[in-house]
């Protein structure tokens, strides 16, 4: 689970399966959007970070995988098309968007430390002494707050609902005081200020989306075919059981030739892909009755057909 502050909501609770994401990303670019798109799926979480219309970062993460850049975009597209996701879009300041990127791609030093068990002061002192750059993510069940550091000095604070880094620690500290609050410590290496490349310039987003749509279509067809085959197998079994039942009745009343007549009339039964039903069998009963008159009288034939009809009802 990726924990991020919600920022200033632009769109919330959209089903990404119903959105042409290639177009949506294009609009973000044209609109010089700064912020992030968060995709929550049962299979993981995807985050696309925009800075002034440039897609500077993408991530897809779950317990087993940590996919970034094109892999992250591609996987997010795939999951979106499954239709079980939720998309939220939040606007942020340019600086904060960059910080969020740093946060997502930083190294996890401590994860899920209970604030009641950890000496927060010692942790902050160590950050300063070791001149760490990165982020302290403090979260409870309901709220989240971030404290960004650069070279050991706190850069600012961020909490739910704010669009920019703040200089007061009030909100962040109030989260730390909530029951069950925890802290993650993430650190970055190298120059965090370095200008980040626009993934949309180097990636064929439309092509990636098209490939994802095609793959989803293929999977859907595969599933439909499998379901259709299952249905066909079921129907074939039912047909087989009906035929065997009718054969046994015909055998009892007309002997071996009766069983052969059932086979013949069954082969001629035109279901046109439909299910075997009482109405579909009406023609069968008529034709079988006519053929059976060659070897038996009406009373015997009527009795046989009656038993077949009852037997079929029993099978249904």
């Amino acid at each position: 689970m990726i924990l991020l502050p919600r920022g200033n909501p632009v769109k919330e609770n959209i089903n990404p399966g119903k959105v042409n994401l290639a177009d949506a990303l294009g609009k973000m670019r044209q609109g010089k959007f700064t912020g992030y798109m968060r995709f929550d799926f049962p299979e993981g979480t995807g985050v696309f970070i925009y800075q002034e219309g440039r897609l500077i970062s993408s991530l897809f993460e779950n317990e087993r995988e940590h996919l970034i850049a094109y892999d992250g975009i591609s996987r997010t597209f795939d999951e979106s098309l499954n239709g079980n996701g939720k998309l939220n879009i939040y606007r942020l300041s340019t600086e904060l968007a960059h910080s969020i990127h740093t946060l997502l791609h930083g190294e996890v030093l401590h994860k899920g430390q209970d604030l009641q068990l950890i000496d927060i002061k010692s942790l902050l002192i160590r950050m300063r002494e070791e001149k760490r750059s990165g982020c302290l993510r403090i979260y409870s069940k309901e709220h989240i707050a971030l404290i960004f550091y650069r070279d050991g000095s706190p850069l600012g604070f961020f909490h739910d609902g704010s669009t920019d880094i703040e200089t007061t620690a009030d909100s962040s500290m109030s989260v730390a005081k909530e029951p069950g609050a925890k802290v993650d410590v993430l650190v970055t290496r190298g120059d965090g200020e370095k200008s980040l490349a626009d993934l949309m310039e180097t990636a064929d987003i439309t092509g990636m989306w098209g490939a994802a749509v095609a793959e989803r279509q293929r999977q859907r067809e595969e599933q439909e075919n499998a379901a259709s085959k299952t249905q066909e197998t079921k129907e074939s079994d039912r047909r087989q059981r009906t035929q065997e039942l009718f054969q046994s009745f015909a055998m009892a009343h007309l002997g071996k030739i009766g069983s052969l007549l059932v086979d013949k009339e069954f082969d001629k039964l035109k279901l046109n892909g439909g299910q075997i039903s009482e109405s579909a069998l009406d023609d069968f009963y008529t034709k079988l009755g006519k053929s059976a008159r060659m070897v038996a009288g009406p009373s015997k034939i009527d009795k046989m057909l009656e038993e077949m009809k009852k037997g079929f009802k029993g099978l249904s």
Partner: protein
Amino acid sequence: MEMFQVVLGFFWLVAGCVSFYFSIGNARVWTSIAVGFFLILVGEIIPGALPFLPGLNNPYVLAMGHIIGTLAILMMSYGFQEYYVFTRTLDFEGSKLHVYLTVVGVIVASLVFLLINPTPDEGVLRVIRIVENTNWVFLSLINIDLIRKIHLNIKDTPISNGFLAFMVVFACIFLWKGSQLYMDVFSLDTKQHLINYTISHYANLVGNLLASLSVGGTFLYLGKLLR
């Protein structure tokens, strides 16, 4: 002897009516067979068994009797062949009306054929009779074998024993028609003092009687089996 002929005529009348009735009320496959047996009554018994019937000595009536008799065995054989094919392929086609119309058509065509040719004399009638009896004799043997095969194919059906009865019918017909053919081929009617004639003559009468009884009995039995 005339009394015996009347009794024979009565039995054939019963057998003919039963078989014709049977052809109406049952599956198409029985039409050819039942109509064939009915034609024995029409073609042979009426002129042959009832001497007091007006026109007995008319050569056209006698010739038509033999022709219809030939048609009778051909129809039966055709019907049994159809039944045999059905037991092997389960396929069957045609309609009863088609069978009736074909029979009537062939009879009318035969009559026209007779009328446009010279009046049949004794020699011509004898040849036609030999042709008829030859057909009866050999087709009876073939039918016995065909019916045996049909019986094997459908032996566990309700009707299978009816085919055993038909085998008996054709055995009687073989005796009846065979003895007649024998007498015609060797012209035994001109050598009535020979024991061969006496045996053949009585075999012919007994065969005729048994055939009429077995045909009527078989169709009644079939009617019971096909209820």
